[in-house]
């Protein structure tokens, strides 16, 4: 079976003043379906940039990225928006919930782009909140939830459309030890039980330990050395 994510000769630079700063240099990477991959590296190594490219949040300078057989580097902005809504779930370090919406409404947001009826949407949201064990707090606003609970709502929002891939950028970076463990347990469960492909960027070796494969980025290069965690 072909890999779900194929990254072929991808390079990316950012402009700072008159200078072009290379962030990713000729990256090649395959990620298998159902994989749990951790991308590690020091600050500025390009790991978040690589994650953004895989999730179609940013554009490559050169190279190709295929996800599920689709060359996302060839899609227009509108096509990418539609593609993201269907194929990728996002988990961020700072949860990125909309403060004026309840937990339920935050989880419902991606479903508003689908053709589901209100009743169907309610069922999907309830199920997603049940998975993250937050059904009883569905009417709470983000400010009324702890950091761990907010991140669980963010995970529910990420999985509510049942995407094939979950991308997580430092998902435990803003959490205490116990909440971080709960979130990692949840991601682990989603990977093992729901066979979600998870790509996680992290600084935290303890978080990376939960991934099956760890790849290291340094100064824009992907090291050939990778570790495989026993599970």
């Amino acid at each position, binding site marked *: 079976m072909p890999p779900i994510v194929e990254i072929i000769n991808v390079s990316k630079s950012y402009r700072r003043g008159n200078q072009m700063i290379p962030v990713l240099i000729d990256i090649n990477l395959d990620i298998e379906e159902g994989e749990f991959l951790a991308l590690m590296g020091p600050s500025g190594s390009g790991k978040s940039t690589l994650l953004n490219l895989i999730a179609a949040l940013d554009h490559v300078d050169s190279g190709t990225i295929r996800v599920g057989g689709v060359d996302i580097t060839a899609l227009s902005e509108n096509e990418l*928006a539609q593609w993201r809504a269907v194929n990728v779930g*996002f988990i961020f*370090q700072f949860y*990125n919930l909309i403060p004026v*919406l309840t937990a339920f409404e935050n989880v419902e947001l991606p479903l*508003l782009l689908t053709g589901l009826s209100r009743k169907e949407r309610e069922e999907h949201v309830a199920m997603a909140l049940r998975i993250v064990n937050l059904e009883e707090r569905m009417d709470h606003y983000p400010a009324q939830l702890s950091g761990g609970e907010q991140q669980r709502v963010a995970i529910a*929002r990420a999985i509510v459309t049942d995407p094939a891939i979950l991308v997580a950028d430092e998902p435990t970076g803003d959490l205490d030890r116990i909440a971080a463990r709960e979130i990692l347990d949840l991601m682990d469960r989603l990977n093992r039980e729901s066979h979600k492909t998870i790509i996680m960027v992290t600084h935290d070796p303890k978080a990376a330990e939960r991934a099956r494969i760890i790849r290291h980025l340094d100064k824009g290069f992907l090291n050939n050395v990778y570790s495989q965690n026993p599970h």
Partner: protein
Amino acid sequence: MFILKILIRNAFRHKLRTSLTILGITVAILAFGLLRTFINAWYGGVEASSATRLVTRSSISLIFHLPLSYKDKIRQIDGVKTVSWGNWFGGVYIDEKNFFANFAVDAKTYLELYPEYILSPEEEKDFLRDRKGFVAGQKLARRFGWKIGDLVTLRGTIYPGNWDFVLRGIYQGRDETIDETQFFFHWDYLNEMLKKRNSTFADTVGWYMVGITRPERAIEVALAIDKTFKNSLAETLTETEKAFQLSFIAMSETILMAIEIVSFVVILIIIAVVANTMSMTYRERIGEYAIFKTLGYRNWRIAGMIFGESLVITIIGSLIGILLTFPVAKIVGKMLSNYFPVFNVADEAISMSFAASIVIGFLAAIVPTYRAIQIRIADGLRRIG
């Protein structure tokens, strides 16, 4: 429904800021509505004018009188149905501050020509019978507490002396555009007195009001009247009642234009205020717009949220402003009743106020929307945290 919920909640996320912005819009729309009402009030006489009435006056100026004998010649012109005449009396009631319009008119024909002044049949009969009788609009009668049968004395400014009149009728306007502050009495009474005084004004009239059979013949009849008196000692100028009223307004055109400009400047100022609010909102929510984009929301949906929020704020402000326009216009109308007998909030003022609020909401959101849809998702997400 869900989107409307987001718009309203977003609009009131900063309650103080939004409330102050709404207050600003309310005041601006109120000012705009009042200024438009003020302009409409100026045109009140024009709106009340009839297409089947012409006004014939001296071609030199309104202050020059025309001979009474013209009435029979005008009556004979094809297309003319009724001829009435009148003089501006310019009387003062007790004090000059108590200004109101007062005319001497040929009562019977005048009432025929102006069916919009509604008098009860008894009052009309009493008025026509009493040469010293007069009729007042109900607003004027209310203002001075006049009752039927009251003796009212006016001090003449054009026609010197004290002139006594008896109130025989109080008319109501057919609709709200009709001036209910007028005072009119018998031209015969004035003429009789002038004859007694051997005045040069005797047997002369200020203007003729000419009722015509069909409005489409107005120009033809007007030309015929003026042609009749061409090369005479008192040449005439005949125009439609509307044109006659407009000629008065033309004298104050510059003031009206200034008021009109001010009313639009008010709108421009409030556009800047709302645009500032929306720009602050945009800066605070860059991250959120990036999240929406991340979730697959396209630019038009993001634009809808910003435009929608801007419109929610402006529409709330303008609706309050429009609702306040009515009672405030009533108060202002009372204060200015001496100068503007008809000071009603016109439908046009309301629709313009509402349209202005839509324009404000729309224009204020353009720049923030443009920026929001231009920002790259990765850059937007970096602003969070």
